[in-house]
């Protein structure tokens, strides 16, 4: 039988991961490239802080989108009455892309914090003391980053196995990190800047989706034994 040298169907997780990797590395690459070319703009400091913070938040939302997307795809394909993709389990594979998105979130959040510590306060810990005292959103941001650090450290498969059910409990703290990120963004955005509202609305949609599917629509997507529903 003729066999394809590379099966897109069999390698869909790898292909999706490569695609996501390229997309999510782009903002950081762009930042380094424009800085090296001196085309980053008038205020590189603000651009670096803005881009890293914003993309950290976007990655956080994208990682929360994955499980919602799985449900939405399933419902959408049922409505289309096509053969494949009507079962929740058909989309289990997209969950396997989630860890990388989460690690990108940690990557951008870490760049954001590093830029703050190095470029803003110049590694002067007295300045950090005054900043935290004067502007509570910095403490909120650092708390969020600490949560992300714990999640990133416990992300390998071996941790997942060793920690058992505690792993799931710990990783639920991503919701707290998301709320802290919203608070952080609201607090620092200047008058007339709508981005925090947009980000908060997106987060609200994702949270509402979870609440609806675990209460009102909990029977709509029946567990057929093939999916990783808990």
């Amino acid at each position, binding site marked *: 039988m003729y066999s394809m040298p590379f099966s897109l169907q069999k390698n869909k997780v790898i292909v999706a991961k490569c695609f996501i990797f390229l997309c999510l590395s782009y903002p950081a690459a762009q930042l380094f490239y424009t800085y090296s070319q001196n085309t980053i703009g008038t205020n590189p400091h603000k651009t670096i802080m803005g881009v890293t913070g914003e993309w950290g938040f976007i990655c956080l939302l994208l990682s929360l989108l994955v499980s919602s997307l799985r449900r939405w795809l399933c419902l959408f394909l049922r409505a289309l009455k096509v053969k494949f993709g009507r079962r929740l389990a058909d989309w289990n594979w997209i969950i396997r892309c989630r860890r990388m998105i989460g690690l990108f979130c940690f990557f951008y959040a870490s760049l954001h914090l590093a830029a703050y510590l190095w470029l*803003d306060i110049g590694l002067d810990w007295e300045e950090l003391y005054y900043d935290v005292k004067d502007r509570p959103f910095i403490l909120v941001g650092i708390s969020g980053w600490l949560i992300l650090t714990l999640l990133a450290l416990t992300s390998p498969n071996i941790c997942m196995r060793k920690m058992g059910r505690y792993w799931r409990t710990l990783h639920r703290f991503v919701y707290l990190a998301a709320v802290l990120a919203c608070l952080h963004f609201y607090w620092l955005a200047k008058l007339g800047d709508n981005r925090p509202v947009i980000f908060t609305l997106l987060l609200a949609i994702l949270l509402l989706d979870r609440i609806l599917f675990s209460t009102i629509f909990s029977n709509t997507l029946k567990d057929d034994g093939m999916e990783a529903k808990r």
Partner: protein
Amino acid sequence: MNGSDITKESIYLHRRKFIAAAVSLLGTSSAFNKVLAANTLDEQLTSLHDITHYNNYYEFSTNKEAIAILAQDLAITPWEITIGGEVEKPLVIDVSQLLNDFQSKRFVYPLRCVEGWSMVIPWQGFQLQQLLEKVKPTANAKYVKFNSLFRPSEMIGQRRNVLEWPYVEGLRLDEAMHPLTILATGLYDKPLPKQNGAPLRLVVPWKYGFKSIKAITSIELTAEMPTTSWMKSSPSEYGFYANVNPTVAHPRWSQRREVRIGELKKRKTKMFNGFENQVADLYKGMDLEANF
């Protein structure tokens, strides 16, 4: 061919520094000397491109990089300025006449934005005290209120109520009469670009940039402290004085540090933006934490 094709900017700037130093040595007027002495700033000027492409001008947009484009639609001739209120000789004057009446001089000031960035700008202009002396404030005059233009057809940012329009700013009379306080009509030896507040703007170098109101249409001397646009918008964040003060924080921006445009890392902010020796007397005995 224009001038910059013949002489490189860095060279003619260097020459001007030399001329400014020479002028101060000759000793013209004592007030002017004090100003110049304050401004033998041993700091590099921010480039003309950065000064004209990174502006806070909410009348057009809250996006600092968009102002350079959006502001070009503003019609600035003719431009009448009304000076009234508590004065003996009220005045309505076209800005071109104003430029004839007052000889403009060069003032190199650091501009510190409340958002935590700063530039060093070579303004041309004249001292506000010269204009105020001409209209003769009455004994009742304690404050000076400035109004900016309200024209949403051209200032498209005014179609959103981000702030109450027109933009209003104010100074105490002694602050307005201070020799450092100027009305700017140009920068880098060119007429004031529209995005920087053409045709006439205020520059108060020891206060945060938002005090330096752009596109002034009227100046009114008052007995009562005027309520500025920013005080109305968020009284807990913006006070009347808005002096550059690293020890009093804004809820969003630490005022202890600033990023000088052209640099990557932040630097420490100086009290009164480096003009402590010249202006600290104005606020003797005042609680600067309460009067922020």
